[in-house]
């Protein structure tokens, strides 16, 4: 167990303190509230506890046993064995935040690697050490733009094809900061080209936020939109799927000022929604307005290269209410996972996995669209996700697919009333041609048998 003291040691310690019992140490607590009788289960041994917890795990349908075509912001990718072997090392796993650089060079240099890999992948100048997830990274992008304009521009244009959770989270964060959100009202034309978001620009616009690939899987060249945003004096932010950047033009190439993203696809297990990884990169001129930890290279007093947390005067523990954000704990271990993943698969592997996703998704889309009653919702280019109109209500269809061992697509009607009876399927390198064919034959069977 984890409590070391023997009775004898406990007595010695109490004597050193000068009290007779442990209870005496709690005299400052009002007596009527002291030592409540908690209604909690009694302690289990490790042997018993692991059985209880594993039993709960067994109630779930897990993706080692099921075939998965569900994405919508979290993706079923292969995690190479190296990633977990590294991140479960106690020296990384059980280390504290690297405030004391002399005993934290491992964590610091690993974060420096992460920052380097993220800037290379997104085509930007600087990366922070992570945010909580793709949603809060977007919320923090708005905070940064707001600070950049010193609160003088208070409109933010959200693409309606930005993940619904990200749009909800940004509204929660900015409920009281005077930011006005436009662009994603329920009547927005979801088929419109994103260049139309430029029609909403005005002198009060601080930031325009799009997703790449967008929530529906579509990919657009945002060069023209970025130009118009900049002409209006506003900033342009892009939320990315990092795997897609193995194949697609980096957002830095089309003029993004801020790139955020959900880093989960980079070697992080699905784990029913977290912990994941919030990517945040930007241009050098904004670095002092950026939130979150940052590692810089320097030297030590022995003349060696060394790493240290830098520009900490932006952060809450120094600046308090004037900090760029309240963020403290971030996703350190998940950033390490992404760094190890990208170092391992590297330039060739990331392109390969991105192409696998792309080709398999296109094969699946073509096959599904050919089934009677199904049709592709959009003709725009897409990456590894696509939307189809379904002949049966999506919840009913998904329930039937589950019986066949398939975790089906995402029911878009939950978030978009206009997309009732539309499902979004995701395909990754984990889906073999046989699995895709099985999905197609199962859809035929459950819809037309």
């Amino acid at each position, binding site marked *: 167990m984890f*409590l070391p*003291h023997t009775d004898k040691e406990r007595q010695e310690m109490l004597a050193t303190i000068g009290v007779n019992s442990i209870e005496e140490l709690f005299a*400052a*607590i009002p007596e009527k509230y002291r030592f409540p*009788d*908690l209604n*909690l*289960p009694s*302690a289990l041994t490790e042997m018993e506890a692991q059985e209880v917890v594993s039993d*709960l795990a067994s*109630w779930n349908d*897990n993706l080692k046993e099921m075939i998965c075509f569900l994405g919508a912001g979290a993706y079923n990718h292969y995690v190479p064995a190296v990633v977990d072997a590294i991140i479960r090392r*106690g020296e*990384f796993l059980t*280390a504290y935040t*690297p405030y004391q650089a*002399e005993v934290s060079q491992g964590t610091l240099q*690993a974060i*420096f*690697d992460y920052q*380097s*890999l993220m*800037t290379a992948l997104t085509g930007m100048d600087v*990366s922070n050490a992570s945010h909580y997830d793709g949603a809060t990274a977007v919320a923090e992008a708005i905070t940064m733009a707001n600070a950049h304009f010193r609160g003088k521009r208070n409109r933010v244009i959200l693409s309606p094809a930005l993940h619904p959770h990200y749009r909800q989270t940004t509204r*929660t*964060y900015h409920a009281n900061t005077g930011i006005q959100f436009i662009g994603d009202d329920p009547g927005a034309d979801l088929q419109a080209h994103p260049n139309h978001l430029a029609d909403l620009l005005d002198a009060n616009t601080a930031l325009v936020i799009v997703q790449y690939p967008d929530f529906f899987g579509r*990919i657009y060249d945002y060069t023209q939109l970025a130009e118009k945003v900049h002409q209006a004096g506003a900033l342009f932010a892009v939320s990315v799927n990092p795997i897609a950047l193995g194949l*697609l033009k980096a957002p830095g*190439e089309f003029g993004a000022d801020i790139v955020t993203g959900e880093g989960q696809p980079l070697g992080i*297990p*699905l*784990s029913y929604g*977290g*912990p*994941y990884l919030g990517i945040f990169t930007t241009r050098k001129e904004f*670095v002092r307005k950026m939130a979150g930890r940052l590692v*810089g*290279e320097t030297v030590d007093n022995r003349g*060696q*290269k*060394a*790493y*240290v947390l*830098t520009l900490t005067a932006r952060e809450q523990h120094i*600046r*308090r209410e004037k900090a760029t*954000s*309240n963020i403290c*704990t971030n*996703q*350190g271990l998940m950033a390490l996972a992404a760094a190890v993943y990208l170092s*391992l*698969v*590297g*330039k060739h592997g990331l392109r390969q*996995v991105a192409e*696998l996703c*792309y080709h398999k998704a296109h*094969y699946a889309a073509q096959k599904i669209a050919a089934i009677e009653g199904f049709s592709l919702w959009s003709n725009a280019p897409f990456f590894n996700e696509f939307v189809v109109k379904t002949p049966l209500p999506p919840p009913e269809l*998904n329930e039937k697919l589950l019986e066949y061992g398939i975790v089906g697509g995402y029911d878009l009607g939950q978030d978009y009333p206009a997309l009732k009876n539309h499902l979004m399927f995701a395909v990754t390198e984990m889906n073999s041609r046989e699995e895709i064919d099985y999905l197609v034959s199962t859809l035929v069977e459950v819809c037309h048998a």
Partner: protein
Amino acid sequence: MPEPDLCEISVPNRIGFRYPEVDVPKAALPEGLVREILPLPELYEVDVVRRYTRLSQLNHSIDTGYYPLGSCTMKYNPKINEEMARQAGFAAVHPLQPIQSVQGCLALMYDLQEWLKEIGGFAGVTLQPAAGAQGELTGILIIRAYHQDRGDLKRTKILIPDSAHGTNPATSAMSGMTVVEIKSDSRGNVDLDALREHCDDTLAGLMLTNPNTLGLFDENLEEVIRLVHESGGLVYGDGANMNALLGIVRPGDIGIDVLHYNLHKTFSTPHGGGGPGSGPVGVRSHLVDFLPSPIVMITDEGDDETPPIYGFYTPPKTIGRVKSFHGHFGMMVRAYTYMLMHGKEGLRKVSEHAVLNANYLLARLRHVYHVPYDRICMHEFVAEGRWDDAPEIRALDISKRLMDFGFHPPTNYFPLIVHEALMIEPTETESKQTLDAFVDALITIAEEARTNPEILKTAPHRTPVGRVDEVKAAKDLILACGVGVEED
């Protein structure tokens, strides 16, 4: 020798990982959208494993040594937690799977909500916040929404004691609140006169850390809470210091309206070199309608034959989501396993021993290091790292010298109300032998401060790198290296 940069070890055309070949007809790639340069490194598996294994060996960690870090609760992280979170039944589950296929996840979350409610004395708990600071944000947004819902729009002032964590004022500012700092009295409690002065009809709430960051349980806590409530404000509890209170006192019982827990402090989930954390929030009954969505609930009670069915629920006046999906589920599995293994008696023992260890350290050190607020402490205490007869020595030097003895330094320069603060939190998982060795090191350092101050000023001497040049880092701003080799 430090490890070289990634780009220095990258070799063109080296392959690190092979994926299967494409087994479907290839589609045309999207015109004009394909990237030409992907400047990532080209390594192979052995390069990667050795690089990160060697890097790991440059770290101090709980698995390799002791952390007396005040306010951070660096307790041991049980290995079984890691096994439990990694099983396919949890790790390979998609967050948007149909409800009927994730009943195990929901049952675990439901129990965890219930247990945290019971431990804190609350009527509702959300597991969604990603970390303590996000828990704070959630809590303050709930307080704001509560006042707005009552049409009480002028309540935008948050009172924060001068001993508070920096996240408290930063959170309040982020929530659109005005921050007013209030001072502590000579015994380390909230100064009641200062508090009274600010208790008016613009008061939204007080953010209170209790035990406070001096490690002291506020002796006037009931009066503090009464004053805030009487003027129409609410009390936010910073749960960073919950490790002192498990089974000892329930914050909700005393009248704290909303509180965040840190699963990565109190409930043993690993810190991971700075995260991920997990910051569930508990609230009393008048605030449950404002909790972030979704909350796990039982949708069908079941009976002796059939287990209950779990689902999600959106509170009617919810502040909305604070992140994607349902929170850091992997951390919840770890905390759940930890709580199962402790049970109600075990959790009380955790806090009792955390407090015992802190008072033992305090008793052994108070004659060597000045303790400005010297009374029975809770799970931590604050000493001063300075002596009149060693004028050059600062807390920083003591901290750096401790590294030479194999210890991580205490939190220093916090709380701000103590000069040259050394904030020491032993946690319950350290043995008397470790605590004694730590005390011996601190006594030796106190002697050295008088006899050989230079050895402190130039410390550490036995770490992989010496004192680092922070000024140069901030001036040069080298924040990334080129990671790939340039294209031919």
